[in-house]
C-alpha cells in the first residue's frame, strides 16, 4: 500500500467511525425474529418510526435479524444484542429466559400470552386438489405424500406435529396412544424431512414433491400470492392449532443499553390498531377482535392452544421432541 492509498484508507476509516458515532445518537433497536416475519417487520418498523418520531421527536431505527427460530434464540444466548425477540414459539424465548437474559413470567407481561398476532397450520395443495385432501385424516391415507419439515430442527414443524397430534387426540375415542399411532402413520407418508420451513416450501413448490404441504397460514398465503393462484390452493382443516408466536423485551440488554422505554413501546405498538392492521395485511391473525373482523379475510377455524392440549411448550417439547420423545419413537427401529 502506498502512502496515498493508506491516507485514503485512514480517512475512510475515520469517516465511518464518525458516522457510526452520529448514528449512535439516534436510538437503534435490534429485533431478533424468525424467518417468515421479514416482510411483516419491514412494514411495521417504518410505521413505528413515524409514530415514535411524532410522539417523542426521537428517530428510531429498528434493525432486523431473521433465521430459524431456535438458531436465533441461540444467537441471543450466545451474545447477540437483541433488544426484543419475536420468535416462533414460547419455548425458544423460554430458553433465553433460562439463561437469565429475560425475567421469569415474561409471557404475562403483554396481553394474549405476549402474542400480538397468531396464526395456524393449514394445508397447501396443488390446484384442483387432485387427492381430495380436506382434513387431517386425509393425510394418513395411503398414496398421499405429505411434506413437512423435521420438528427437531424446525419450530414451524413442531406446530405441524402438535396440530396433527391434537386433532387425533380430540377425535371420538382419542387417546395419546391413538394420537401417536396417527402421527406415525402420517410420517410414513413423509418422503423428505427438510430442516426448515422454507426448505419444505421449496421442496413442495419448486421440486414438485408431495401432494400436500403443512404450513403456517401466513406462509401458505405468501406462497400462493407469490407463486401463482393457478398452481396451489389453501385448504383449512376442520380444526387446527392456535400458533402463538410470542414477543419479549430482553431485560438484560435493554437495561444495559438504556432502551427499555422504546423497546417496550415497540412491542406495545404491535397491539395498536396500526400494528394489528399490518399483521392482518401479512396474513397473520390479529388478536384485536375489531381488526380481525374487518381487516382480516382469513377463514374461521376451530383452534386449540398448546396450553389446553399439551400443558404448555416446556412440557410439549419434553414429551414430543426431546431425545427419546414421541417423534423419535416414530423413527425408532
Amino acid at each position, binding site marked *: 500500500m502506498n502512502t496515498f492509498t493508506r491516507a485514503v484508507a485512514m480517512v475512510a476509516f475515520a469517516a465511518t467511525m464518525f458516522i457510526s458515532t452520529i448514528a449512535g445518537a439516534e436510538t437503534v433497536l435490534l429485533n431478533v425474529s424468525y424467518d417468515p416475519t421479514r416482510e411483516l417487520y419491514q412494514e411495521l418498523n417504518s410505521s413505528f418510526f413515524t409514530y415514535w418520531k411524532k410522539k417523542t421527536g426521537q428517530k428510531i431505527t429498528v434493525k432486523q435479524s431473521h433465521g430459524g427460530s*431456535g438458531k436465533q*434464540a441461540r444467537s441471543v444466548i450466545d451474545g447477540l444484542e437483541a433488544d426484543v425477540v419475536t420468535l416462533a414459539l414460547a419455548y425458544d424465548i423460554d*430458553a433465553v429466559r433460562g439463561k437469565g437474559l429475560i425475567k421469569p413470567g415474561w409471557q404475562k407481561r403483554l396481553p394474549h400470552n405476549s402474542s400480538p398476532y397468531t396464526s395456524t397450520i393449514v394445508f397447501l395443495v396443488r390446484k384442483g386438489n387432485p387427492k381430495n385432501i380436506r382434513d387431517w385424516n386425509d393425510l394418513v391415507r395411503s398414496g398421499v405424500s405429505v411434506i413437512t419439515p*423435521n420438528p*427437531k*430442527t424446525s419450530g414451524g414443524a413442531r406446530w405441524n406435529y402438535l396440530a396433527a397430534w391434537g386433532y387425533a387426540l380430540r377425535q371420538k375415542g382419542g387417546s395419546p396412544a391413538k394420537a401417536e399411532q396417527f402421527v406415525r402413520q402420517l410420517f410414513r407418508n413423509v418422503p423428505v424431512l427438510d*430442516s426448515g420451513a422454507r426448505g419444505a416450501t421449496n421442496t413442495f413448490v419448486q421440486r414438485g414433491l408431495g401432494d400436500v404441504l403443512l404450513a403456517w397460514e401466513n406462509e401458505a398465503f405468501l406462497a400462493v400470492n407469490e407463486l401463482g393462484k393457478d398452481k396451489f390452493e389453501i385448504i383449512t382443516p376442520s380444526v387446527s392449532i392456535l400458533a402463538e408466536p410470542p414477543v419479549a423485551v430482553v431485560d438484560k440488554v435493554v437495561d444495559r443499553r438504556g432502551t427499555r422505554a422504546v423497546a417496550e413501546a415497540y412491542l406495545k405498538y404491535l397491539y395498536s390498531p396500526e400494528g394489528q392492521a399490518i399483521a392482518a395485511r401479512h396474513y397473520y391473525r390479529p388478536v384485536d377482535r375489531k381488526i380481525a373482523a374487518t381487516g382480516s379475510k382469513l377463514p374461521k377455524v376451530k383452534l386449540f392452544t398448546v396450553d389446553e392440549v399439551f400443558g404448555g411448550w416446556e412440557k410439549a417439547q419434553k414429551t414430543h421432541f426431546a431425545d427419546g420423545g414421541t417423534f423419535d419413537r416414530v*423413527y425408532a427401529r
Partner: protein
Amino acid sequence: MFAQKRSHLLPGLKPTLGYTVFYLSLIVLLPLSALMLKAAGLTWQEFVTTVTAPRVIASYRVTFGAALGAAAVNALFGVLVAWVLVRYTFPGKRLIDALIDLPFALPTAVAGITLATVYSSNGWIGQIIEPLGIKVAYTPRGIIVAMIFIGLPFVVRTVQPVLEELETETEEAAACLGASRLQTFTRVLLPTMLPAILTGFALAFARAIGEYGSIIFIAGNMPNISEITPLIIITKLEQFDYAGATAIAVVMLVASFTLLLGINLLQKWSRRSAA
C-alpha cells in the same frame, strides 16, 4: 564433540516456529479446546450414550461412507481432469480450468438447491434417470453427489502441478526402454502422482465429512437412512443441548483426525517408495 547447537541453513527458525505454534494455537487449538471443554460437561456415561445412540451411529455410517465414496470418485475423475488440463490444449481450456474452482466459491446452500433442482424427479437429470429406477435427490445417493461436487477441486488442484512438472521425456524414455503404455502409467506416472492424489483424496474426504449446507437440501434427511452427522449436531443444538452436540462433534473430530493422520502417513510412505 558436535554437541553444540545445530546451525540451520535458514536463519530465524525460532521466531518462525514460535509464530507458527502461536498462530496454530490461536486459530485451531483454542476453538477446539473450547469444544472439548463444552463436551466435558457430560459424564463419561452420558457421553458414551449420546455418541452411540442408534440414530447417531447410523449417521456416522452415512456420513463417513458417503464421504469415502465421494472422495474415491473425485480421486479417479480428478486425475483425469487434471491430466486433460495439463496435457492437451483445446479451445475453452482456460474457462474449464476456472470452472474447476467454482465449488469453492459457490455458497454451499446455493449448490445444494441447484443440485436438488437438477436431480429431483422434475429436474434435467432427474427426469431422465428416475424412469430408469435411479433416484438421486432425497436418497443417500444425493449426499454422495453433493459431496462429489464440493470435493472436485481438491484432487484436480493437487495433482495438476505435479503433472505439470512431470516431463514427457520420462515417458518417452520409458517407451524407449520397452515399457508398454500401461507399464508407463503404473510404473512411471502413478508413483509420482500418488502422493498428490492421496493429499487431494484426504482433503476432499475431510471437506465432505464437514459439509452441511449443500447436503441438507438434497439428502431427504430421513432418520437412519439419509441423515448426516452434522444434521444430528444441529438437531441437538436446536434442543439447546450444547453438551450433546459437542460430544458428537468431538467424535467426528477424532475420527477425521485419525483418518487424516493415517492418510498422511500413507502419503509419506508412498513418497518414500516412489523415490
